[in-house]
C-alpha cells in the first residue's frame, strides 16, 4: 500500500515538475567539464597535503602511543606475573618451613618421650631391685629372728625356771635336766606358739 503511494507520488512529482526540469535544463553538473581541472588540482593539493601531514606527523604519534600503551600493559602484566610467582614461592617456602618445624617438633617430642620412658624404666628397675633387696634382707632377718627365737626363749625359760627353782628351793639344780624338760615342752607346744 505504502509502496503504491510512493510510486504515485514520484509519478506526480515528475509529472508536475517536468516544466521545472526543462526550464533549468540542468542535466548532471558532474558531467560539465568546466571545473574538472580545478577539482583535479585542488584534490591533488588537498589530498597530498593530508597524506603528508598524516603520514609524517600524526600517524607515527598514534602508532607510538599505541605501542607505548601496549608495552606498558605488557610490562605491568609481566610485573604482576613475577610478583605472583614470587608470592607463590614464598608461600611454598612458608609451607615447607611449617612442615619441617612440625616434623621437628614431633621428633623432639618422640625423643623426649622415649628418653623419659627409658629413665622412668631405669629408675623403676633400680627401685624395684632395691625394694627386692630390702625385702630379702628383711625376710632373712625375720627368718633369722624366727630361727633364733625358740632357742632364746628356751634359754630364757631354762634360766628363769632355774632362778625360780633356786629361789624356791634354795639349791643349785642341774641346768641340763631343766633344759630337757623345756625341750620336751617346746616340742609339745611348738605348733601352738609358732603356728603358721
Amino acid at each position, binding site marked *: 500500500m*505504502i509502496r503504491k*503511494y*510512493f510510486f504515485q*507520488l*514520484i509519478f506526480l*512529482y515528475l509529472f*508536475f*515538475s517536468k516544466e*521545472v*526540469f526543462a526550464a*533549468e535544463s*540542468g*542535466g*548532471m*553538473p*558532474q*558531467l*560539465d567539464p*568546466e*571545473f*574538472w*581541472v*580545478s*577539482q*583535479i*588540482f*585542488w*584534490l*591533488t593539493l*588537498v*589530498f597530498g*597535503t*593530508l*597524506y603528508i*601531514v*598524516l*603520514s609524517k*606527523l*600524526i*600517524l607515527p*604519534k*598514534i*602508532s*607510538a*602511543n*599505541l605501542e*607505548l*600503551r601496549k608495552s*606498558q600493559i605488557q610490562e605491568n602484566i609481566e610485573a604482576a606475573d613475577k610478583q605472583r610467582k614470587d608470592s607463590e614461592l614464598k608461600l611454598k617456602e612458608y609451607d615447607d618451613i611449617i612442615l619441617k618445624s612440625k616434623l621437628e617438633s614431633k621428633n623432639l617430642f618422640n625423643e623426649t618421650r622415649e628418653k623419659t620412658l627409658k629413665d622412668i624404666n631405669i629408675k623403676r628397675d633400680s627401685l624395684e631391685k632395691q625394694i627386692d633387696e630390702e625385702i630379702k634382707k628383711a625376710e632373712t632377718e625375720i627368718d633369722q629372728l624366727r630361727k633364733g627365737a625358740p632357742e632364746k626363749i628356751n634359754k630364757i625359760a631354762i634360766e628363769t625356771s632355774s632362778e625360780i627353782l633356786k629361789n624356791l628351793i634354795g639349791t643349785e639344780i642341774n641346768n641340763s635336766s631343766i633344759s630337757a624338760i623345756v625341750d620336751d615342752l617346746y616340742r609339745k607346744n611348738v605348733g601352738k606358739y609358732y603356728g603358721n
Partner: protein
Amino acid sequence: MAANPMTQFEVYRIGPEIKIGAFDISFTNASLFMVVSSLAILLIFNLGAKKNSMLPNKIQLLAELSYTFVSKMISDTAGSKAKPYFAFIFSLFMFVLFCNMFGMIPYTFTVTSHIIVTFVLAAFIFIGVTIIGFIKHGFGYLKLFVPSGVPIVLLPLIVVIEIISYLSRPISLSVRLFANMMAGHTMMKVFGGFVISLGIVGGWLPLTFSVALTGLEILVAFLQAYVFAILTCIYLNDALNLHH
C-alpha cells in the same frame, strides 16, 4: 516550487578566477569542502595523537580506534606486506569518509558525488597498484591475467575477460562511490521536495521517508568509504601477493 534535485551538485567559483595557462583552477565550493574535510581530519587526529594517557579520553580513543580499524582492515585483506601503504589507505579512507559525512549536513557540498574526483582517486590507485605490481614481480605480474587451473581451450577467453576486468577497476571503483553519493543525495532532495509540495496535509509521509533516508545515507556514506578503502586493499593485495 521544488528546486531541481541536481542543483546541489553544481560547482561554482568562490573568490577570484585563478588561471594557469589555459586551465581554470579557481577555488570552488568543491575545493572548500575538500579543505574543510581535510582540516577536520587533521584536527581530530592531531587532538587524538597529542597527549598519551594510559586511559585515553574520547577523542584519543576515536583516533586510536580508527587507526586500529584501518590497520586491521589492511592486514586482513593485504597481509603484512601492505604496511608501507598504511598511511595512504588511512588518508584515503578518512578523506572519503569525511567528504561523505560532510555531504550529509544540509546545504553542504558532497565532494565525492563528482565523478571527476572519485575517478582521479581511483585512477591514481589503479596506476599506483599496477606500478607496484610490476616493480615487485616484473613481467611476472602479467600472470595475474592467467588464472591457474583453467582448461587451455578456455584460456584465451579467460585472459581477455581478466584483462577487461582489470582495466575496468578504476571505472567501477569511481562510479560506485560517485553513483552512490549522487543517487542518495538526489533521492533525499526529491523527498524533501515532496514534503514542500504536498504541504502540511500530505507531507508527513515523505518527511518520514526523508528521516529514514538520512539514516540510510549516513550508513551508505560510511559503507562506501569502507568499500573504497577495502577494494584498494584488495587491489594492493593482488599486486603484493601474486596468487596465480
